[in-house]
């Protein structure tokens, strides 16, 4: 009953005209970003973050979350019509989606992608609403040693699945942790790595690093090749987009499978929507009566991964909103947004800011309905975005990046920094150093250092406090297992497969 009352309060918040507008803007931009290959939700959330600084935090998080889950709806359109995933979570949709388009069934493929996304997206929000409050209550028992162990576990999971080389992912994470130490030390007021730049006294601006490594880095990486692909036409009229009764019957297990797998994979840090969609596709194929037909254009092959990558959003928001631990680059940027708006992500967030948490949950129900409308009758309109030439799109992204960075503090220093970080982001992609652990290291660095220093203050320098408390010990053991696991051949083969899918 309490959940229902809270949800009603959330709907009252989400249905305020301005919040409805932010939700619409978020899901609209999310769909556009999802459709455009080469521009991911993390880059877009980073780009629009500076513009939300003057906004009400509830409106801001509603909009940024809208981009996050909206991108997953849009990604399928490009996979089906162009055989190029609009974003990494839609890679597996290409397998059967593009084959369906080749067989003249692009309409039902787009239709089932939108419907399964809607069903699973909604299930994901229901599960988020049910799971998050008890997790937050449980996390109230955590002290600094448990937080340190939890962050170590979260970072190790992200490192495990961030790229082909775990060593490179670890280096990327440690560089992020180092960047987090730049500025004034909160315990002693001493300067660290500021090089006498006043601009670095408050630390490296997170927005600058996120925009540089993600938005500008992605644009530069996309300049390497300027060729496009052949696109199928979208059938006109809603009737031609609707799957028939048999299609829906064939997809019914895929809806359930994708919704549940997506959510539970989403809760795990580092796993993400790409892995959720692959696992769900694999399960669907394994239980199918005709597994040999997968890859030739079966509708369940579109429904299962699309359901999973949308349900994953609800799962990924659980550790973010209840523990303050992000599991991916996009949720790391959302965490930074909460900190910038003056909130303290963690177990008290739901208690201290119920209007934000329940407003966000309610807005996700509304956003999913908006996305269903945007992605069914309006998909032919959105598909036209794919005709936007790269020579128009990329300069626009660079322009928004510069405006976003400059508008934070009106400092030219930040523009120079973002330029160099953009090159760094490109080089990291080029030599396969994943940028996600760097961003996570930067966001969690301060919190992690505080947790370890507070723990050692509590124990008067006795390191055993970090592993002698049961919860912390369990999490540290898991961290060690995650880090040494890839030394075993079978684990490493599995890890490489998962990481390749996520790239």
């Amino acid at each position: 009953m309490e959940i229902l009352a809270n949800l009603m309060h959330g709907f009252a918040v989400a249905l305020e005209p301005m919040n409805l507008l932010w939700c619409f803007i978020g899901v609209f931009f999310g769909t556009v970003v999802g459709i455009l290959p080469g521009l991911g939700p993390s880059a877009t959330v980073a780009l629009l973050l500076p513009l939300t600084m003057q906004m009400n935090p509830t409106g801001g998080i509603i909009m940024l979350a809208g981009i996050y889950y909206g991108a997953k709806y849009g990604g399928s359109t490009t996979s089906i019509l162009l055989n190029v995933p609009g974003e990494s979570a839609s890679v597996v949709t290409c397998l059967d989606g593009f084959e369906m388009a080749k067989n003249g069934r692009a309409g039902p493929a787009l239709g089932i992608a939108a419907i399964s996304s809607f069903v699973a997206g909604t299930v994901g929000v229901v599960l988020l609403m049910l799971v998050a409050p008890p997790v937050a209550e449980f996390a109230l028992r955590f002290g600094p040693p448990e937080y340190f162990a939890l962050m170590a576990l979260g970072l190790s999971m992200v490192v495990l699945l961030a790229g082909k080389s775990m060593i490179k992912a670890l280096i990327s994470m440690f560089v992020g942790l180092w960047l987090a130490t730049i500025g004034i030390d909160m315990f002693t007021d001493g300067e660290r790595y500021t090089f006498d730049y006043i601009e670095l006294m408050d630390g490296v601006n997170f927005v600058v690093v996120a925009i540089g490594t993600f938005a500008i880095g992605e644009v530069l990486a996309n300049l390497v090749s300027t060729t496009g692909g052949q696109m199928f036409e979208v059938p006109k009229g809603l009737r031609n987009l609707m799957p028939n009764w048999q299609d829906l019957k064939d997809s019914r297990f895929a809806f359930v499978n994708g919704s549940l797998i997506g959510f539970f994979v989403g809760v795990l840090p580092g796993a993400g929507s790409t892995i959720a969609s692959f696992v769900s596709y694999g399960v669907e194929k394994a239980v199918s009566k005709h597994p040999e037909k997968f890859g030739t254009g079966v509708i369940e092959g579109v429904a299962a991964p699309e359901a999973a990558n949308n349900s994953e959003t609800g799962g990924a928001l659980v550790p973010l909103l209840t523990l303050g631990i992000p599991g991916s680059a996009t949720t790391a940027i959302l965490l930074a947004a909460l900190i910038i708006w003056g909130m303290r992500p963690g177990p008290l967030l739901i208690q201290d800011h119920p209007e934000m948490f329940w407003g966000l949950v309610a807005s996700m129900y509304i956003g999913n309905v908006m996305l269903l409308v945007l992605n069914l009758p309006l998909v032919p309109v959105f598909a036209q975005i794919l005709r936007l030439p790269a020579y128009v799109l990329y300069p626009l992204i660079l322009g928004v990046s510069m405006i976003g960075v400059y508008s934070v503090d009106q400092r030219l220093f930040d523009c120079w920094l973002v330029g160099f970080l953009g090159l760094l982001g490109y080089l990291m992609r080029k030599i396969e150093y994943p940028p996600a652990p760097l961003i996570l290291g930067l966001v969690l660095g301060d919190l992690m250092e505080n947790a370890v220093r507070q723990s050692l203050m509590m124990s008067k320098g006795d390191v055993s406090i970090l592993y002698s408390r049961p919860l912390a010990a369990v999490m540290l053991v898991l961290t060690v297992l995650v880090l040494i696991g890839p030394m075993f051949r079978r684990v490493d083969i599995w890890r490489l497969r998962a990481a390749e899918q996520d790239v």
Partner: protein
Amino acid sequence: MGVWRSLNKSELVAALLLIGVGVFVLMHAWDWPYLTADGPGPGFFPLWIGICIIALAALLVVLQVVHTINQGAVSATNWAGAGRVLGGWSGLMLCIALLQPAGFVVSFLLLVMILVMAVFRRTFLSALIVGVSASAGFWVLFVKLLRVQLPAGPWGF
């Protein structure tokens, strides 16, 4: 000689640079107190970060050499693609350098023209149309409508 020739130089340079970063982090951390009367000092966390970066980057160098001995030559570089990236990035840095003296609108117009003409090989007219509409559109949207403060040149925009 054969091993050296088939080494992936960019990987090796990156790993060596990272060792340098690790040494830099460590050297500075060395100057700050590791432990204080209250607990860990400001040097505690960066010191361990520096050590980890050095150790991991050194491991990468070793693995790079071993991998090269076992696997042979590396794939060729796409120089045309690298040239486009460098062109785009140089345009961006020029735009940043001109932000203060010329203002956002003019410097962004220049960036768009460089990208469209030099990187995407389009005509001057296409570049001009995209550049003028993008910079004017941004100016109206961000400066006039959203009241975002952007650097203004001698012409007031």
